[in-house]
């Protein structure tokens, strides 16, 4: 078995799976259950100033379901902890004593003035926590009070608060970033410049789930009124992966360790985050949908995967980062064509109709009077749409043309790479 023992910022945990700061980590009771189930660490539900905030007593969550009622996307309007600070601190101290091998991180959200940070952080650190995570991410509620995403959207604030935190804390400081920005790099850079030891991302995305089709109000509501919440769950994973990869591949930010968050439901999702540059991962929604037991598959699946690939966890981390680049560097001489395996084809015709209606008219529906779906190479641009919509996995695959002439363009296949930076149609092209 591969060794999943992880050290992140010098904090060791038996596996790279931490519970994210969220309802599952609100109390000792939950965290105990999580650690009993096998979770490697927990980021405690975000602490704030006393007196504690209050939460609504109506719906805090809602979901987008598949027809089988599988939760695809999830939304919440819960705020930070609504329990007295001392209650949380007492429980955190006890948990750290009871579970010394697990990572315990304190998430904090405080008003933007240095004395407050200087006051609270030592109190929290005194519980024995391994690190701080600064919550600059929650897009709802607290952001109206100038905290959470309101800080995370202004790089200068991130840097300022990171500096205050580093001054007040002796344990490592992780900055949790909000995805509600157009470019994740300036916030990440600000965290680095403020002295943060790592970043974690993503927090949730601003969202309204839907309307109620009877009342024609937004859904859900509290006494007839609703507010935007934070969107998460497997639907947000691609957004998170891009932001993680951007930080991991950009020269100015790539030195930052990353704790990956966003829609991790099974071990493959974890592989995505780790390979794209995260050093560990945090999970919330999947646990809220299925309970803590999912850790079994996360650990076991990742273990088996690493064994099959004969990789260590460290070797997996960042493995896919070099494959991420800008569009302008993609090889425009590279040509693929779709190929339909007629043995596997069930003749649903979806590839034909989507290609016909929305793309390049490159798939037949009839050949010699028979229902048959074949790729027309002289029209196929290799777009992968048919592969994406085909209900039979492996039935349609993309094959590279390595020689001869591309029947679509009439151009000879060139073994040389050529990208947009030097393309003749690019008015800004570089001359060789």
């Amino acid at each position: 078995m591969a060794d999943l023992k992880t050290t992140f910022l010098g904090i060791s945990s038996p596996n790279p799976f931490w519970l994210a700061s969220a309802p599952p980590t609100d109390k000792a009771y939950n965290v105990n259950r999580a650690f009993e189930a096998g979770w490697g660490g927990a980021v405690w539900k975000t602490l704030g100033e006393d007196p504690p905030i209050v939460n609504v007593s109506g719906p805090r969550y809602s979901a987008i379901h598949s027809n089988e009622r599988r939760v695809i996307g999830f939304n919440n309007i819960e705020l930070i902890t609504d329990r007295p600070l001392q209650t949380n601190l007492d429980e955190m101290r006890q948990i750290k004593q009871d579970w010394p091998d697990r990572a315990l991180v304190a998430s904090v959200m405080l008003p933007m003035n240095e004395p407050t940070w200087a006051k609270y952080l030592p109190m929290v650190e005194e519980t024995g926590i391994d690190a701080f995570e600064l919550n600059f991410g929650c897009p709802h509620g607290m952001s109206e009070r100038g905290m959470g995403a309101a800080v995370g959207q202004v790089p200068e604030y991130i840097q300022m608060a990171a500096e205050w935190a580093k001054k007040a804390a002796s344990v490592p400081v992780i900055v949790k970033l909000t995805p509600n920005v157009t470019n994740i790099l300036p916030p990440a850079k600000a965290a680095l410049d403020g002295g943060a030891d790592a970043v974690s991302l993503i927090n949730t995305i601003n969202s309204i789930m839907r309307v109620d089709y009877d009342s024609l109000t937004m859904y859900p509501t509290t006494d007839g009124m609703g507010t935007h919440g934070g969107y998460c769950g497997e639907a947000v994973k691609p957004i998170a992966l891009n932001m993680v990869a951007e930080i991991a591949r950009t020269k100015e930010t790539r030195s930052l360790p990353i704790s990956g968050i966003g829609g991790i439901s099974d071990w493959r999702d974890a592989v995505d985050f780790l390979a794209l540059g995260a050093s560990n991962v945090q999970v919330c929604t999947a646990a809220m949908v299925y309970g803590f037991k999912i850790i079994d598959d996360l650990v076991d699946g990742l273990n088996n995967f690493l064994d099959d690939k004969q990789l260590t966890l460290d070797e997996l981390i960042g493995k896919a980062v070099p494959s991420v680049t800008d569009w302008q560097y993609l090889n425009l001489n590279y040509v693929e064509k779709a190929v339909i395996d007629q043995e596997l084809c069930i003749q649903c015709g979806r590839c034909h109709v989507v290609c016909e209606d929305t793309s390049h008219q490159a798939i037949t529906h009839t050949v010699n009077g028979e229902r048959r779906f074949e790729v027309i190479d002289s029209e196929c641009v290799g777009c992968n749409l048919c592969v994406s919509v085909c209900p039979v996995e492996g039935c349609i695959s993309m094959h590279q043309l390595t020689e001869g002439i591309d029947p679509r363009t009439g151009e000879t296949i060139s073994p040389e790479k050529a990208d947009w930076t030097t393309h003749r149609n690019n008015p800004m092209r570089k001359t060789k």
Partner: protein
Amino acid sequence: MSKNKQQADIRSHRLDKDQIARNFGDLHPPLSRSEALIAADRCYFCFDAPCTTACPTGIDIPGFIQKIRSDNIRGSAHTILGENIMGGMCARVCPTEVLCEDACVRNTHEEKPVEIGLLQRYATDPVFDQGTPLFSRAAATGKKVAVVGAGPAGLSCAHRLAMLGHDVVVLNRDDKPGGLNEYGIAAYKTVDDFAQKEVEYILSIGGIELRKGETLGKDFTLQDLRDSYDAVFIGIGLGSTNTLGLDHETLPGVDSAIEYIAEIRQSDDLGKLPVGRRVVVIGGGMTAIDIALQSKRLGAELVDIVYRRGPEQMGASRYEQDLAQTNGVTIHHWAKPVELLGDDHVTTIRFERTALDSNGRLTSHGDGFELTADTVFKAIGQILDVGVLGKDAAGLEIRHDRIVVNEAGRTTLPDVWAGGDCVAGGDDLTVTAVQQGKVAAIDIDRRLRGE
């Protein structure tokens, strides 16, 4: 002939009330919303969908399933009923396993098609429960059309004609409309008086006058109708039952399956129906299965179906055959009845083994077997009683005892159309009858508008 002297054991109340109720409950209970959503999700929304091609009425099946997925149930029902006004009954009785569900592309790798029949029922049930109006009539044309027979073909034709603005008079022999939907389908396939509910819905469009107790050839002639109406549609089904051609066929205990199925359907206390202890059914179609299974479910102890050819040639689908067998019915293939025995009641029926000769013709071996029987049901098909057509039959081409029509349902008489089981080239399915009625109505409309 006096070989067996045993008393015929035929009696009612073989099973208690609760058991009867269970036996005659819905064969396929309807889908719940969550079941329907999951079933609908399995549809791949095929291009030029093979299921639609396989449907005699050409329902846009992926289209109606897509609407189920989005909770647009009324829209889904409209998609179905717009092509097949008896989509509710067809959802219950269509042999989907040889039509749409057989064509489903899911069969290729999973051998488990989308449950199209059950989904169709899910989409249409609310329409009949609530009487949701989905169709309206075009401006009145002032034309009047007579429809003979209120079975699937006649009612489908009448409904479409009414939609197109014509006035329709439906002349029906039976007390109740619906034809074989009302009288000829196994009770557990259409519970809760669904056939009448469906007819009520069809008539609710308006412009259709239904007259009962009107028998062609007795109460009126085809010529009467041709004289008084702008067009005539014949959908009279098949009136007479085929005979075995054996001696003693009139012996008590040798009965018509169709008639007994009708009795079961019309009974308000199934326990009261007398049923034999030993029942032998002759035939291989859906009617043979229906009578065998219903006899069994009424409490018959031993039920045998004997068919003169093999399982592949049976008119009943494989699914229906399996259903009979899992319900304890024994099916004997390759045997034909040669003698009925009994003095004042049938007691035994003797069979000879059959086979196909080198020319593909059915021959008998000589050797055979006997089955003891309290009741022998003939389920060997029906024939058109050409006599009811009267002297007008002279102008009507009849082939193999069925009325000849073209693809638009026209007979060889210029103002007479026909459809359903009484026409040649059909497959004796409700869904085909509905399609023929619809197609004829569209052609009648064209003709009446002088197009």
